[in-house]
């Protein structure tokens, strides 16, 4: 790919961050019960079924989206602010948070964090809404610094305690399902937080944390690590990108700078990441020309759970790991089963038609899966299988071939 065409592609992706996603918006939203609806006497609903349908809705959006970078950003923000239905309990609130990421994700990071802090799913997830003026709950105040904005090692336990005081009174109204600040439960005393002193509010705390010296390195290293290859906040690439990001905390400009960074298209970045299971599923469906409707009900959630990444259900506020984290023996088995299922639903006529011509067949599989070039070992294995299947007859050669290709390191890595 020439340099010019890459920069053109990047412009297109970046424009997509603020463009309308016509195809994505057409994905029908399942019925998700809101808190006020559930308060109507006699109203009943199945929260787990709503959750399952929500998973399908999101994956479908990723598969069909006209604005793929924004969908990717939504996933990265779910990884940055991991929140689980397991505790939140309302699919409608998980959906609202997902839309929040889509709407505010490409903008200013401080505004995003403020909205996330007041987001009902987050209020439930990190207990912000349950504490009282004289007994603050530290859960949100701690993760705000450690996971969301700064990273460990840049604040003291006292900052956690003082920060927690500033968020007292931030509550969820269980009649409307809306965030509000309860003045009777808010601590109006003087607090000292990361060196700032005064009657600080929750909003002040978020401003201070997102503008702290440690924040740009943390945010930039996280985003870079999910897009290119894992780095720490001290990595020279991160230092370089952080300077520009620190000026306006603008996520669109950060994403553009990352995609256009020379290291992003360097050999190091090739094969630098194992696709996260959610990305794997979405991209496999996309290249195979499938959508979620083609699969049995509930199978997507089940398969993603087997791979260790059920959407809307991270294991903890620490989210999921990277690379080696996904490469367990169990996952290898689950990928084989998933690949076989996907291949069985795909229309593989063009590959089927090439039966008897192993090398052409293998080239056609590469084109189908959008793999530039097979590694020598993968190529050899695929040709061996294609040749054997040709002689075998009676089986489903194209399906088996595509199954093997889908679990090859070539497709598993970004």
């Amino acid at each position, binding site marked *: 790919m020439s340099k010019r065409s890459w920069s053109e592609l990047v412009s297109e992706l970046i424009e997509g961050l603020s463009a309308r996603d016509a195809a994505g918006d057409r994905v029908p939203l399942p019925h998700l019960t809101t808190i006020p609806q559930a308060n109507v006497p006699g109203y009943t609903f199945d929260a787990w079924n709503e959750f*399952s349908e929500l998973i399908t809705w999101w994956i479908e959006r990723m598969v069909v989206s006209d604005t793929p970078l924004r969908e990717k950003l939504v996933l990265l923000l779910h990884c940055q602010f991991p929140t689980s239905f397991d505790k939140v309990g309302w699919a409608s609130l998980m959906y609202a948070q997902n839309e929040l990421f889509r709407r505010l994700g490409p903008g200013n990071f401080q505004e995003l964090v403020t909205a996330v802090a007041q987001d009902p799913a987050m209020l439930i997830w990190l207990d912000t809404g349950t*504490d009282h003026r*004289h007994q603050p709950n*530290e859960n949100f105040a701690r993760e705000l610094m450690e996971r969301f904005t700064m990273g460990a090692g840049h604040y003291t336990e006292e900052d956690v305690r003082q920060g927690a005081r500033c968020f007292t009174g931030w509550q969820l109204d269980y009649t409307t399902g809306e965030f509000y600040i309860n003045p009777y439960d808010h601590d109006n005393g003087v607090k000292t937080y990361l060196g700032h002193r005064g009657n600080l509010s929750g909003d002040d705390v978020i401003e201070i944390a997102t503008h702290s010296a440690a924040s740009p390195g943390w945010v930039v290293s996280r985003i870079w690590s999910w897009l290119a290859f894992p780095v720490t906040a001290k990595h020279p690439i991160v230092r370089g990108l952080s300077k520009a990001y620190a000026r306006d905390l603008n996520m669109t400009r950060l994403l553009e700078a990352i995609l256009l960074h020379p290291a992003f298209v360097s050999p190091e970045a090739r094969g630098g990441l194992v696709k996260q299971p959610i990305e794997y599923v979405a991209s496999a469906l996309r290249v195979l020309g499938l959508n979620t409707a083609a699969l049995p009900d509930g199978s997507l959630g089940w398969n993603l759970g087997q791979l260790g990444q059920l959407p809307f259900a991270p294991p903890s506020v620490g989210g999921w*790991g990277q690379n080696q984290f996904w490469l367990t*023996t169990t996952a290898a088995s689950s990928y084989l089963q998933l690949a076989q299922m996907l291949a069985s639903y795909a229309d593989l006529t063009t590959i089927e038609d090439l039966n008897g011509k192993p090398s052409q067949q293998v080239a056609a599989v590469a084109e189908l899966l959008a793999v530039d070039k097979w590694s020598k070992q993968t190529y050899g*294995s695929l040709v061996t299988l294609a040749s054997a299947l040709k002689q075998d007859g009676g089986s489903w050669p194209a399906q088996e071939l595509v199954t*093997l290709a889908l679990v090859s*390191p070539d497709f598993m890595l970004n």
Partner: protein
Amino acid sequence: MGTLDRRQFLSRTLGAGAVAGAAHVGLPRHPATVASTLPARARVRAHASSVKPGPFVLCTLTGGNDGLNTVVPYLNSDYHRLRPGLTIPGDEVLTLGSLDGEELGFHPALSGLYSLYQAGQVAVILGVEYPDPNYSHFVSMDIWQTATVTGDDASGWIGRWLDVTGTDPFRALSVGPTLPTAFVGDRQQASTLNDNTSGGSQMPGQDTYFLKIYKKLMTPYHGAVALSNDVGESGINLLAVGAAAEAALNAESIPPNPSDRGSGDIGNQLDIVAELIEYGLPTKAYGVGWSSFDTHSDQLDTHYSLLSQLDAAVENFMGVFPSPVEGKNPVLMIHSEFGRRPEVNGSAGTDHGSSGVVFVVGPGVKGGFYGAQPSLSKLDPLGNLVVTTDFRRIYATILEDVLGYAPASRILGGNFKPLPFLN
């Protein structure tokens, strides 16, 4: 708040389970009393050094288990002063006796563990943590799992043992699709098992010929991108471990447990491990784990439910191994990344604290108290318990006496005096 176990949670996403009318899934109520009516178990005590201890089973409780309400200082006035509404009453605790003048008792949900304790098979290790406690879940868990004081970028302690003991993928097996850091070394990592008791679930469905070519595809080779070889290794190890686990689970060496106590996800995981040990797999270290111990709010009911399931799981597991048999003499260690704050917070829960309780259970374990119960009248400046026992002392015992690797200092990066909790 929902605290469904992971297994239920995953199966529910199939859309099969219906919870009509409520988004919040109710927890069982905390019963006023729990009668310890379990039959006394006939036990044969081990004679010192007659049967080697092992395999090791590491059970990690994520979220920060509240040590004070697990092993309860139920007569301590500071305990009642610090957590009004969140104490376990003295008439409910399962009394253990006193240590240094402090009367201690198990949480009433731990009836199975209590009968094991009475049989002399539970080491209760008190005040366990590390110097200068960290209150972040992730940093603290990393410190525990890496056995380093910062937890930064280090490999896991069992992973480092794997690094220096060859390449056999059977040496360590962890249940579940992802691996805890403890099981990840610099060069080697544990294999994983599907969290499903059916043997067929351990292997993919493809035929032998397909898997032969899959093996060719996955074989690591010189000159490949590092991650590509890591993908390959996971596939190669699957072919060996998955087939063996399938055979072991299909053999069903253990009769189904008649107990109707719900042991949830952790019970399921320990059932798998029990089958594999009984079948005779050569594995030396197993991993199981469970989350949701982060009880910042409404702790009383949640914690009861969590401990009750854990207890049923441990009781079922140990029921398979009543006395030491060579290779089937499991040493089960149960720990969390930290304990919780002695003082109740405004949400009827507790925030992150230090200094937790560790249990080591097994037929070859020398039961009793180890370490020292931290004082509730002399908290640290942040209002937390003072640490009395370094967690690496437990690891030293495990490494040297269960995993058979000495000196443990080579893995732990320092000398930690082993705790004598094995017969």
